[in-house]
């Protein structure tokens, strides 16, 4: 999904260079992951999933040498 969004605005040579799992506790850094939401997730998901709820990814892309006009909507 991330690569698609990057592609939609005109980037090319998109590569996912790395990814690692991110767990529930680490998600506390993001204001939207309130304690309430994390509790819902904690209860809704099996414990084995708590350590890899989302992925942290590293992505590279390049703006074309001859971009076709302005970036369009993603």
């Amino acid at each position, binding site marked *: 999904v991330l690569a698609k969004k990057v592609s939609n605005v005109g980037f090319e040579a998109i590569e996912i260079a790395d990814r690692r799992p991110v767990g529930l506790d680490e998600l506390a850094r*993001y204001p939207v*992951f309130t304690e309430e939401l994390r509790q819902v997730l904690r209860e809704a998901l099996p414990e084995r999933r708590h350590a890899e709820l989302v992925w942290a990814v590293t992505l590279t892309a390049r703006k074309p040498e001859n971009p076709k006009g302005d970036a369009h909507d993603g």
Partner: protein
Amino acid sequence: MTVDTERLREEISKVYSEVACDPKKGYHFHTGAAYAIERLGYAPEVLAVLPDAVTGPFAGVGNPLAMGMPRTGETVVDIGAGSGMDAFLAGRAVGPRGRVVAVDMTEVMLERGRDNVALTGLHQIEFRKGWAEVLPMADASADLVISNGVINLSPDKAQVFREAFRVLKPGGRLQLADIVVHKDIPPAAREDIAIWTA
């Protein structure tokens, strides 16, 4: 679900201002040089040259510079730079003839970043107030755009990517680290989370 952008920005500023002021407080999430080295693969010898004031508040999710360092003389933009660990690494790489524009919306982070410029003497790094969706940069002015754990915090991620595209020169590179939601979390929770993750 309607996103209250102002409230979101306030909440983000509050959290990261706390990190800037008190990086050793003991957050639920990881911060600092040890985390960057042990979890994200930053080279210890590279971080060792930076003062604690730069590395202490670091709260990224990956290493966007692992795919390639900027070259001497290049212009780099760091979206949501925080106190600037990646920006300072980029600043050392571009050298005095290059430029790093570290963009952040949090006043406390900007103040810390500017203090760190004075502390390190890396005056090629400039901290500018701005938002990921409206970068304070001219069109086609950057060789490299980096970001670390920030784009997921934007309520309009497509606009962030459009801005990165706009400010890059033709052939310019985007290198970012961020979080993406796992596909098999419960639908109700996914609906909320998907708004915030890439």
